[in-house]
């Protein structure tokens, strides 16, 4: 039976069961989705913050901060049999919901730090839907690699 796996803020999940769905709701958070060219292994990390600032706690979540989160996801993919050089990524999220002049722009920094972490590991980004001013409900289908993005109001896009 295919499962629907909710990837909560700061968490990550990996599956190779075709038909499984990995899903997250992203505002300023960034969803990193990794695929393995040689298998159906698919993983998603729900990055909360760009980096660990002064006085911030490490916490128990594997994907709380961008660089360690990407690394943890790569490790889990490799442990389950993916070849590191066969990994590629899709990126979603990092929106600025309250428009300009309000709050900081964590979304933008989340995107920048996540991209940098992927670049450092030589993992190409095949597609992305990042930034903007709307939240995204992202669902990845294991096996097909289809990433379905829904925004409030019902519009849907597949990358």
């Amino acid at each position, binding site marked *: 039976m295919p499962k629907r796996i909710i990837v909560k803020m*700061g968490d990550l999940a990996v599956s190779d069961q075709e038909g499984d769905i990995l899903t997250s*709701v992203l*505002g300023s*958070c960034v969803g990193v989705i990794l695929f393995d060219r040689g298998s159906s292994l698919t993983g998603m990390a729900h990055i909360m913050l760009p980096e660990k600032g002064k006085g911030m*706690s490490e916490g128990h979540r594997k994907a709380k901060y961008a660089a360690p989160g990407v690394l943890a996801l790569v490790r889990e993919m490799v442990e389950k049999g993916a070849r590191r050089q066969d990994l590629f990524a899709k990126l979603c999220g990092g*929106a600025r919901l309250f428009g300009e002049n*309000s*709050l900081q722009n964590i979304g933008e920094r989340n995107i920048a730090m996540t991209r940098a972490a992927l670049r450092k590991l030589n993992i190409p980004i095949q597609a992305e839907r990042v930034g903007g001013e709307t939240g995204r409900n992202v669902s990845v289908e294991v096996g097909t690699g289809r990433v379905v993005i829904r925004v409030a109001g019902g519009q849907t896009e597949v990358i």
Partner: protein
Amino acid sequence: MSEIVLDEEEVDILREIANIGSGHAAASMEKWLERDMVLEVPQAFLVPVEEVAEHIGDPLQTIICVYTRVEGDITGHLLYSLTLDDAKALLDILLDPEDRRWGFSPDNLSAIAETGNILFSAYISAVSQISGLELVPGPPACAADMLEAVVNTVLLEICEGSEHTLVLETKFHGEGLSSVGYVLFLAENEALKRLVQRVEAD
């Protein structure tokens, strides 16, 4: 920011502070909407940040949210959040139905932001009065989006990586009407402790 460490008694005091703040906010709503308001008893929950959204409602539902940062002697955060049905109920009172079209139009959002502003000002001035702390609301910001996306975005901006947060939630109803939204008060550990100490001292 350090982790939130509060005992039951402190949470009770904070719930009472939220109760007084909400009471004043409801009174200001009565004037603004020209109808009686019914308040639910404020809820206080200390939960991991990633679980706040699901405590409030369906993470995927679209909400309209007004946010303001509270500055002054302590820093806090207020959110006024409405489901689409809440927003419709509110706008039906505020705007002439003939004049308005439904949707996230600038007029509709600005009427909701103004309602949030009125609620926040009353809430903050009540908390300021009972604690003796000087508190000033910042300009309100408004967003219409999925609940989980909105709540998490605000939480991440304010929680600075802490694991848990205390949410003080009050639901508002108009007399004979469905809900017209709820107010959430969030603050950091030191700010919450200071609030408790100041109120206890009196």
